[in-house]
């Protein structure tokens, strides 16, 4: 427990104080297994994560399991902790993390890897799984990064691959049973790997490499351990556990609103998008379920905003039914709706009026690429006409600020595509003046450009990332193409994207570099103020890592990739097919128009748009 003198001497002590409405405190003596659930970033980031809200509830729902929250302490608190030799503790009961049975860490982005290691260190837990005896908690990883867990595999005992609502309680229940029988950690891990689908125990595989550094093979060390771990999904979202009670943070968080998850997956298949692939197949909740859940969440939270959080929300088949049903009571309660992921081609005046808060004068669209050719390559399926029509709707409703998201460094990209970004922005400005009834204020079109990062389990997983030099040139070139003074231009730091690519595409050899980074004091790399590119490159060099091998190399079609040990449903054949179609500048219809046989249908699910599993024999 942090003492009051510690809390009084740091910034934002509310991050550590606990005491929130809705937190669940159980008597440690009355449960069979205790889980410390960690979001390895600042409290206000972690408390905004829907996955954490769900898994906290799902574990605490089990009578004999308790789940408590842990976050990465901010640097001022870390300094105090190190100075006073205080170990990292849980929020609910102030129990040292190392006294729990499990430390479950949700790994949401690559740039938090050093925080993961710092959390272990501050908890007094040895970093490498092989150096931890049975007295330490079992360290579980999950979240999007677990689809290529290899760079951090050596630090974890187990990963749960896929959706955790069912899997995580199964794991903890198995542990509780085996603990009673006096089994060892090894026995438990082996049983979990053999019997629970989605469990990946990195220590149970021998990994060999070819002379050129590429993977030769992953071989299970024990019988019954799967050669490929298939991701778990929840089949029926309507009956799935949903957290009706939410821990209500007192301090301001990134997401201070109700997050209503409408469906999982995405029918679109943008070729750069990892989420669009790994969360397949699309499974929807029924509007009746959602309306009930929204009401219940409002009563239990009092939040003044409901955000419909799903990828590409306008693809929800019953969106109108849902929004109409919500508006029946939200208007009266002064609760506003927000749809963070509207597609350009589905934007309508009606939708905007339902969701737009009166105050916001700006609206965001994501054309992603500057020309139709490149938009076809990435399968974004949006046209310039769509954009102009949508912007026109926004302008005619009095808005004068539009934000446009793009990527640069995409496969096959040329200068023409970059010029297209400036062109689209300038056309949007023109559209403002073409729109009757536009605002009297001058328009601003902001373009925000991020650098393409090839991600595992996407059609672009074989692609090299543009080099740093190229990325910087591209960023500058876009800037030089913009003539209109009504266009504002911002771009992400190419340096961050480069490190992200290395970590996203890495294998187990990177763990040495991460260990080194940690020993050099790295943490909070997702925060601009702490990210230091030169130090990262120095660490890679010292660890003998050729960064270009991971980030800037075109991988052979038949190369064994580090994440091939994971089966996320979508097949490699499909991804290759998509990659080749990208080269041919051919688009692929959405899952709703026509199934493309990606392979995810084999995972099953209720109310999915896939033709019934097994129909697509060609892919399996």
């Amino acid at each position, binding site marked *: 427990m942090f003492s009051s003198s510690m809390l009084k001497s740091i910034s934002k002590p509310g991050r550590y104080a606990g005491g929130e409405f809705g937190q669940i405190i159980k008597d440690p003596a009355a449960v069979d297994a205790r889980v410390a659930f960690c979001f390895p970033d600042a409290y206000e980031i972690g408390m905004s994560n829907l996955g954490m809200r769900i898994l906290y509830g799902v574990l605490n729902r089990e009578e004999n399991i308790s789940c408590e929250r842990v976050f990465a302490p901010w640097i001022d608190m870390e300094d105090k902790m190190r100075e006073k030799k205080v170990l990292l503790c849980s929020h609910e009961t102030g129990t040292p993390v190392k006294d729990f049975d499990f430390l479950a860490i949700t790994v949401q982005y690559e740039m938090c890897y050093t925080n993961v290691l710092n959390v272990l260190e501050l908890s007094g837990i040895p970093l490498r799984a092989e150096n931890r005896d049975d007295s330490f908690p079992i360290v579980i990883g999950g979240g999007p990064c677990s689809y290529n867990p290899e760079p951090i595999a050596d630090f974890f005992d187990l990963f749960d691959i896929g959706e955790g609502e069912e899997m995580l309680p199964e794991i903890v229940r198995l542990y509780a049973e085996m603990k009673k029988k006096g089994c060892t950690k090894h026995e438990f891990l082996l049983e979990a790997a053999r019997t629970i689908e989605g469990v990946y125990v990195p220590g149970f595989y021998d990994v060999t490499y070819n002379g050129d550094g590429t993977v030769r093979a992953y071989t299970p060390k024990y019988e019954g351990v799967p050669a490929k771990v298939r991701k778990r999904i929840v089949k029926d979202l309507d009956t799935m556990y949903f957290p009706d009670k939410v821990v209500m943070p007192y301090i301001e968080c990134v997401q201070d609103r109700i997050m209503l998850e409408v469906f999982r997956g995405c029918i679109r298949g943008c070729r750069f998008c990892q989420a669009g692939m790994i969360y397949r197949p699309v499974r929807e909740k029924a509007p009746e379920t959602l309306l009930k859940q929204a009401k219940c969440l409002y009563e239990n*939270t009092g939040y003044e905003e409901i955000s419909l959080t799903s990828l590409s929300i306008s693809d929800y088949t019953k969106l109108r039914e849902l929004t109409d049903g919500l508006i029946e009571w939200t208007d009266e309660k002064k609760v506003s709706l927000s749809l963070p992921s509207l597609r350009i081609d589905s934007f309508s005046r009606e939708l905007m009026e339902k969701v737009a808060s009166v105050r916001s004068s700006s609206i965001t669209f994501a054309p992603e690429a500057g020309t139709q050719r490149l938009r076809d390559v990435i399968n974004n399926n949006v046209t310039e006409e769509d954009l102009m029509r949508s912007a026109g709707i926004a302008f005619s409703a009095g808005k004068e600020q539009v934000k446009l998201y793009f990527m640069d460094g995409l496969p096959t990209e040329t200068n023409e595509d970059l010029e297209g970004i400036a062109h689209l922005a300038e056309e949007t400005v023109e559209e403002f003046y073409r729109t009757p009834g536009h605002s009297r204020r001058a328009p601003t079109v902001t373009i925000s450009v991020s650098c393409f990062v090839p991600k595992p389990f996407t059609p672009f997983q074989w692609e090299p990332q543009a080099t740093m030099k190229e990325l910087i040139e591209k960023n500058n070139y876009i800037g030089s193409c913009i003539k209109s003074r009504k266009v504002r231009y911002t771009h992400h730091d190419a340096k961050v994207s480069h490190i992200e690519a290395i970590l996203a595409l890495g294998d187990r050899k990177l763990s040495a570099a991460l260990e080194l980074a940690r020993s050099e004091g790295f943490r909070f790399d997702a925060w601009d103020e702490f990210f230091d590119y030169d130090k990262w490159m120095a660490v890679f060099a010292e660890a003998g890592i050729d960064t270009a091998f991971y980030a800037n190399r075109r991988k052979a079609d038949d190369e064994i990739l580090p994440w091939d040990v994971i089966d996320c449903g979508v097949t490699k054949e499909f991804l290759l097919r998509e990659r080749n179609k990208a080269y041919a500048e051919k688009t692929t219809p959405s899952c709703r128009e026509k199934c493309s046989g990606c392979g995810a249908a084999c995972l099953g699910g209720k109310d999915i748009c896939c033709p019934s599993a097994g129909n697509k024999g060609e892919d399996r």
Partner: protein
Amino acid sequence: MTDKIEYPMLPEPRTVRLRFKKTGALQYISHLDLQRSFIRILARAELPLWFTQGFNPHPKLVFALPLAIGTESVCELADIRIERDMPCDEILKRLGTASSGGLEFTDCYVPSAKFAEITGTEYTITLELGEDDAKAFSEKAFETLTSSPIVIRKRTKSGEKEVDISGMISRLRIDRKRGNVTINAVLSAGEGNTLNPENLLDALRAATGLPDAETEYSCMRLKMLCKDGAEFR
């Protein structure tokens, strides 16, 4: 919904005063964060709030005196405005189920006095100094806080400035029990004239070096007072 009774509309919105404690973990929540959280508590309690009219309707919520981070209180007051005739005990009951341990609602009534009438606040500050330091400290503390002038640097809206706080402290009492020193005092309050326990501790730090970074201490606001010395309601 907790209750389906429709309370009748009031001809005019009614101001209702809430009294609450802010203790334990809640002492680390800033005034701004408390305000935001309050709105959600009021919504969870499903009180028939009156909303301001206009572009951005919001409920009316006014606090008596902001409380600094690190100070607990058993006497906080806030006014809200309701549009339906919900009885005060019902409001109190609902708030009870909508809030957590460190934030406890203790009273609810229709006020007759205005917050501007508050002129002082009674605090108690407890310092865990250990037997060795306690005696010398308590003597020195009394001497310091009864001298004049007592000059500290105080943050104001227009930057830091030096102020004499000697006239802002009254009814001072310092007790010592083993290693713990308790300072009880009424500090002036009100627009532009508010003294916080931390200001007092600053004066003591300057004079005695204590409390330092290692000292465990707590501050508690006990009462808000009117000019005549009676408790403000």
